[in-house]
């Protein structure tokens, strides 16, 4: 069955006794998309992923994988899934080859094509030299790769990765990132992380979860477009007020540093430079600056501190 929407989750809620871990999350994953799930520790990312993969029954809400409800037809729905949980689900006492062969047969890869599938997954994850090593003797980084290989060995349309780069060195992180980018050409990926540059580097859409709720959701392109929304400038002789057309508001940061918010659709940069030259403000620096992903993340997830500030 070909569907354009590979994961459709509606109103996912999960309670642990009186604690609500995840509340009313809606999530849609389209073909060829890499969705980044971002959030501070304990925000509900892993709980959401466990529900998406059928490892945890939601208290309410539904999950459809490739158009099949995972609660009603778990076997059929799970056929389209590859999942790397927080801890790679590896068996330390067997070799990489034995383990991947088992993972492939478990997911119904027929015997005739199993060897090729395992070889391809090993190739993708850089495990070729580790084929006959015991998984328990591999380093954390390589175990993580084995976990990743397990998730892609049966070429599922949907791949769900829970913090795939934890415990890896910077070079391995780059390799995994490029692997994820390569995977996205044929698969859809959901990726969770609390590392911002990681999401920024690979994802096409980002979703920020905080205290079990979705607090932000947009495409990376839109996030990047917002980047040009504000102007930061430094003046040697700053005036008391800036009477420049196109500037909606001005905020002084002290020592001649200012942040300007332009009126909607206006670009006051040229006028600002001209006014500075004419009035001798001594413009030292002028750059566009906007809400980066990091600022969005911090402003949305540090609500405790904002509330405190507002109260003060």
């Amino acid at each position, binding site marked *: 069955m070909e569907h354009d929407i590979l994961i459709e989750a509606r109103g996912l809620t999960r309670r642990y006794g009186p604690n609500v871990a995840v509340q009313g999350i809606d999530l849609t994953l389209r073909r060829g998309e890499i969705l980044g799930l971002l959030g501070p520790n304990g925000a509900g990312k892993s709980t959401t992923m466990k529900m998406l*993969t*059928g490892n945890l029954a939601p208290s309410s809400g539904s999950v459809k994988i490739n158009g099949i409800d995972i609660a009603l037809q778990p076997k059929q729905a799970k056929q389209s899934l590859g999942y790397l949980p927080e801890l790679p689900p590896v*068996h330390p006492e067997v070799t990489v080859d034995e383990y991947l062969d088992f993972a492939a047969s478990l997911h119904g890869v027929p015997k005739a094509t199993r060897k090729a599938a395992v070889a391809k997954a090993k190739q993708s994850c850089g495990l070729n030299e580790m084929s006959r090593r015991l998984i328990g003797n591999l380093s954390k980084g390589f175990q993580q790769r084995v976990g990743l290989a397990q998730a892609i060995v049966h070429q599922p349309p949907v791949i769900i990765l829970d913090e795939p780069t934890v415990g890896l060195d910077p070079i391995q992180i780059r390799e995994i990132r490029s692997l994820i980018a390569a995977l996205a050409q044929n698969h859809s990926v959901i990726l969770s992380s609390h590392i911002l540059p990681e999401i920024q580097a690979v994802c096409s859409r980002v979703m920020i979860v905080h205290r079990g709720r979705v607090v932000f959701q947009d495409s990376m392109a839109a996030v990047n477009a917002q980047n040009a929304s504000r102007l930061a400038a430094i003046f040697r002789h700053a005036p008391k007020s800036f009477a420049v057309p196109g500037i909606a508001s001005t905020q002084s940061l002290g020592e001649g540093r200012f942040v300007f918010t332009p009126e909607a659709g206006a670009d006051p940069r040229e006028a600002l430079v001209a006014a500075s030259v004419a009035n001798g403000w001594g413009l030292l620096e002028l750059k566009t600056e906007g809400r980066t992903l990091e600022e969005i993340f911090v402003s949305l997830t540090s609500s405790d501190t904002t509330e405190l500030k507002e109260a003060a």
Partner: protein
Amino acid sequence: MSALVAIARHEARRIFVSPLAWTVLAVIQFIMGLSYCLLLTEMVNNPGSLNQYSGVSDYIGGGLFGFSAVLLLLVIPLMTMRLFAEDKKSGSLTLLTTAPASLTEIVLGKFLGLGVFFLAVLALMAAMAFSLFGGTDLDLGRLFAGLVGQLLLMLSFGAAGLFVSTLTREPVIAAVGGFGLLLIIWLFEAMAYGGGMFSDLFRHLSLIGHFEKLRRGVFDTADVAYYLLFITLFLWLAVQRLDVERS
């Protein structure tokens, strides 16, 4: 179905690559070998103990199987402790629960993998009994009944141990719990001797009472049915337990 076979094969492989399995096999074989020798010497020194009702097959075979039951009670919880507890602890159970396999297939797969190990134990036991073939006539029916009883007893111990293993994340707790559970069901036999209104019930429920007859070569469908029900009950409980964990 293919998932079940895949899990069973992989589980058997995991059991046989672990030093634990070989240690357990070695210890069982050493102790059983010792008791085999003792039984044999005793029989040779005391040929008067054999009569028309109790021959070599009964003396050696029955004696071996009877003694092995106690030994198995001690070691099988060690073999079952890791089945689910360790996978839960390491997080590798997720591999199975994310795969297109039902909980029943997962439980049955692991159980059958364990069954392969039991076949190895059984083969060693059978080899000792059948080694007498060169020297004397053996009552094959008796020996086979004993071996069937032995296999059913091992599978029952295994099913109960497997269930206890789904209850915890710590393999050692699973071993202690499994041993405790088996011992209690075993001791029903002693409670039955105490008399009272429930003594019949206890006698029917005891694990060892049903083994006694098979060991002596009496193949009774009721005994076999008891073991099959016992196994089914604990495997079903394990499936229920895993299902509860998900919700």
